[in-house]
């Protein structure tokens, strides 16, 4: 007679003993890629569970695609550089390292400094209790600088989705703004907002919809590091347009005003 304690079985192994549709589906939802043989055999014999399996596999593929967010450029290089900088403590080594190194390492070091500066500045802005309407255009620029992949990722969003999002935000899209290349939800001061990149005759333009913050001025403009932005009240909060030049900003602002009717 065997002692039951001799073989401790896991919950998944235990479930193999009673295989039916319910058990199969539970196992599939728990770990779609690792199913016991009994579950696979059941799936092959049961058309309904086979369809269920296909559906789950499809949604897993979607999930994997969504989780696959872009990695900041040079992340691994920066970590390794950090290890190199902290691996030694005397300044002679540091001086030698930089005197013998390639321009690429200088660039990396510069990017580390720049990243730290941006992080500090942005964190200060986002966490500050003293943010006023006057900061909204600068915040919008910081947001765009923070997500450069928004300009390189092309998702080709259905214009209808933009119409719906705009409607929920409190605006009516009376005519398309242009080809919407990128649209995503982003953390913004006070909650979650939409980050939209669309094509215009003057190049790419960014529209940020911030639903939770009201403006107490009619508009505010800012320019920084080659970016120009304007923030204005609209919908449930405010919206910001960001472009590469004051001239294109003026045109895109006029386009948005012409094509979006804001509910007040």
């Amino acid at each position, binding site marked *: 007679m065997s002692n039951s304690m001799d073989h401790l079985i*896991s919950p*998944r192994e235990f479930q193999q003993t009673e295989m039916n549709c319910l058990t199969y589906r*539970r196992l599939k939802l728990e770990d779609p890629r690792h199913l016991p043989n009994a579950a696979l055999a059941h799936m092959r014999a049961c058309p309904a569970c086979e369809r269920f399996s296909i559906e789950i596999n499809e949604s897993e593929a979607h*999930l994997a695609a969504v*989780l696959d967010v872009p990695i900041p450029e040079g*992340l691994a290089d920066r970590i390794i550089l950090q290890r190199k900088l902290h691996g030694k403590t005397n300044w002679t080594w540091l001086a030698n390292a930089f005197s013998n190194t390639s321009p690429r390492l200088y660039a990396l070091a510069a990017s580390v400094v720049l990243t730290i500066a941006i992080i500090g500045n942005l964190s200060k802005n986002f966490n500050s209790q003293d943010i006023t309407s006057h900061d909204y255009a600068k915040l919008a620029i910081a947001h765009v600088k923070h997500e450069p992949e928004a300009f390189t990722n092309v998702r080709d*969003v*259905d214009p209808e*989705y933009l119409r719906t999002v705009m409607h929920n935000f409190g605006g009516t899209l009376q005519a398309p703004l242009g080809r919407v290349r990128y649209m995503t939800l982003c953390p913004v001061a006070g909650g979650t907002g939409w980050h939209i990149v669309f094509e215009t005759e003057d190049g790419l333009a960014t529209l940020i919809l911030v639903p939770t913050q009201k403006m107490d001025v009619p508009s505010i403009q800012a320019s920084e590091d080659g970016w120009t932005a304007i923030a204005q009240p609209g919908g449930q909060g405010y919206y910001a347009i960001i472009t590469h030049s004051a001239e294109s900003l003026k045109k895109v602002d006029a386009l948005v005003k012409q094509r979006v009717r804001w509910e007040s």
Partner: protein
Amino acid sequence: MIAILHQRQFDQTVRAYSADLYRYAYWLCRDRFTAEELVQETFARAWKSWGSLTEMAAVKSWLITILRNERARLYERKQLDMVDIDLQDLDIPSLHQAGEQLELEQLLAELPESYREPLLLQVLGGYSCDEIAAMLGTTEGAVMTRLTRARQALRANLEGLDQKLGHHSTVKGVK
């Protein structure tokens, strides 16, 4: 000689896992700067203890554990609120009104952390339920329940979207 070997191992580990760790951190905190900060801190701490690492095969789960600790430390330092709410209490106003990928992104971001974290570990990390249970300090059964509920929540909302758009119906027959 050992120092050079350690440096080489460390650099290879950074190149192999920094992307996965970043994605994991990003989906935990939903902020790119914080995610990068967490990954940098994780590897900085890992490097300090690199000599004590005895099993290279377990390096990824070791890094994930460091990252989770760093995150807890960061949240404590910045006194950020971590709120875990029930699925039924979620308010996702525009859930059925945008594209499937956007919907999934939003829903994933809104999942309670106790559901989202095991899902991330399984989909991004490829860990089994018992490995996830060990990392999260809970039971395998609890992880299985959370994974099932997480996927059910995602499916229920996406099915709602499908039905609204008149797409295919979902499987109903159960023996």
